[in-house]
């Protein structure tokens, strides 16, 4: 029913939709095909895309491997939980460039592990990505655990299954979608991270199979930023266009 309340809400909502949707529309409409093609054939861009998928994948796996146990503890509850929760959510509120600074203080020169080089290294990049994306893996998985009726776990226990067996046969299968969601969110967050990576590892060297050896490039958002500073809006727009296209394809594939 088209009464005034709905019309008013729709009008206000539409303005926000324009603010969010128009940039994407103009971005696609104003691309120059020749530059896009040129960039799409550039081996620099290929390396950037490879690293932009592969690095975040490692970060997402690390986030899940350590985040799922933590999420399970959260869903069961323990003393001091609030403090630990704040710590997990910390990366969500820290400005991104500050997150990079934090990582350098914690793990960089003079930090806790003198033998580890994080500045400009692959390890540093993965650490920065894990730092910002782990909360997503933990929170999504935790939500999945919490949405499981306690009585299903009770039922498992009372019929003879230990905690391990209950996790394996009941809890984990019922939460598997949440874990996958958490992994995908963590991956997407790592793909999009710019500030922390730019501070910790602006350029990184890694083993690139097509080249058969080490190559150096930047994480995708850093690469786009660098292209913008050096080549201007049109060139960086073309790179961003390719990056968004590849991301969209990967998302469609995951779904």
């Amino acid at each position, binding site marked *: 029913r088209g009464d005034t309340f709905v019309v008013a809400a729709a009008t206000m909502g539409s303005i926000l939709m324009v603010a969010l949707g128009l940039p994407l529309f103009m971005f696609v409409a104003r691309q120059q095909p020749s530059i896009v093609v040129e960039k799409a054939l550039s081996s620099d861009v290929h390396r950037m895309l490879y690293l932009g998928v592969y690095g975040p994948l490692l970060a997402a796996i690390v986030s899940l491997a350590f985040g799922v146990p933590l999420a399970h503890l959260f869903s069961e509850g323990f003393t001091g939980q609030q403090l630990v929760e704040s710590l997990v959510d910390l990366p969500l509120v820290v400005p991104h460039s500050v997150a990079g600074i934090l990582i350098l203080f914690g793990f960089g020169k003079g930090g806790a592990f003198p033998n580890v080089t994080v500045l400009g290294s692959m390890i540093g990049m993965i650490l920065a990505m894990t730092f910002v994306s782990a909360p997503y893996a933990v929170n999504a998985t935790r939500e999945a655990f919490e949405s499981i009726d306690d009585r299903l776990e*009770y039922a*498992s226990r009372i019929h003879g299954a230990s905690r391990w067996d209950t996790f394996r046969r009941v809890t984990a299968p019922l939460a598997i979608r949440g874990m996958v969601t958490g992994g995908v969110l963590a991956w997407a967050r790592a793909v999009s991270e710019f500030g922390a990576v730019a501070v910790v590892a602006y350029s990184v060297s890694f083993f690139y199979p097509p080249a058969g050896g080490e190559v150096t490039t930047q994480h995708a958002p850093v690469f786009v930023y660098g292209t913008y500073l050096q080549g201007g809006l049109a060139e960086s727009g073309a790179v961003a266009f390719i990056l968004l296209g590849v991301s969209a394809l990967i998302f469609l594939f995951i779904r």
Partner: protein
Amino acid sequence: MSLHADLTATFTAEGAQSFRVDAEIEVERGESLVILGPSGSGKTLFLETVAGFHSHDGPVTLSGQRMDDTPPEKRDFGFVFQDYALFPHMTVRENVDFGSRYHDDTRDADALLTELGVGELVDRYPPTLSGGEQQRVALARALAVRPEVMLLDEPLAALDVPTRQSLRDDLADVLADATAVYVTHNRTTARALADRIAVMNDGQVVQSGTPEAVFHRPNSPMVARFTGSNVIDLEDAPSIRSVLDVPGDDVVALRPEAVGFGPEGDVRATVERVIREDATNRVTFAVDDVAIDAFADEAPAVGEEVWLTLSDDGAHVCRPPAASPV
């Protein structure tokens, strides 16, 4: 295989105050104990605590063996949940077979399900079943591991009336020889299934005994009301006080079955309301300042003046709980 639980546990729900359960029960082998109480009286929490799902103080012993620190998987109970709690990602057969790998001597899922009248559902998934079917599967899952004691949490509460009656009959068969603790707020279910009844209120057992004792000799107005008696403060009903042979300042529980009426009798009353129930009519009379329910096959007219006859053995003095040792 007797079960004895004398436990104290405090629960703190999010946003609510803490709730304390502090109660003792004792079940002998082959006996069915029904815990009867209003919602929020702590009966479900008590049952879950006995099963080992919550930590508690005080002993829980099964066949003389203390099991306070025994995890639930070692306690040898069967548990039937009010909302079924079937594993949604497993077929009915897998649900019933769930415990088989942890127990040596389990019952065959297909045979058990057939016995309970749901043999054709073995390959279905629980979310596709009706409430009654789910509850039968849940019962089979609990029975499959041949537990020493069955714990049942209102397994009939979520069901339609006809389904409830039919499952109640099957439960009566299952519980006939089993050692069981059964939690409900329904007095008819309690009377149908209980060898002994423990009435629970505010986290405490306020009366326990045979169904006969609890229904006919309630020790408090709360128990009287909850078991369906009329609760009459004799101060408000002088004409009843003069008929019943009890001290004057007492509160009396009067079974509605013990109230008769006709053109002659002991107490003058007016018919206030008639409600048709399954078997009979529930008639509400006004006597002095109180309302008294009775049953009648033939319904009187509303507003009619009649005489009540009160049978002495249907009346029982119920002192407030403070004065009566539990």
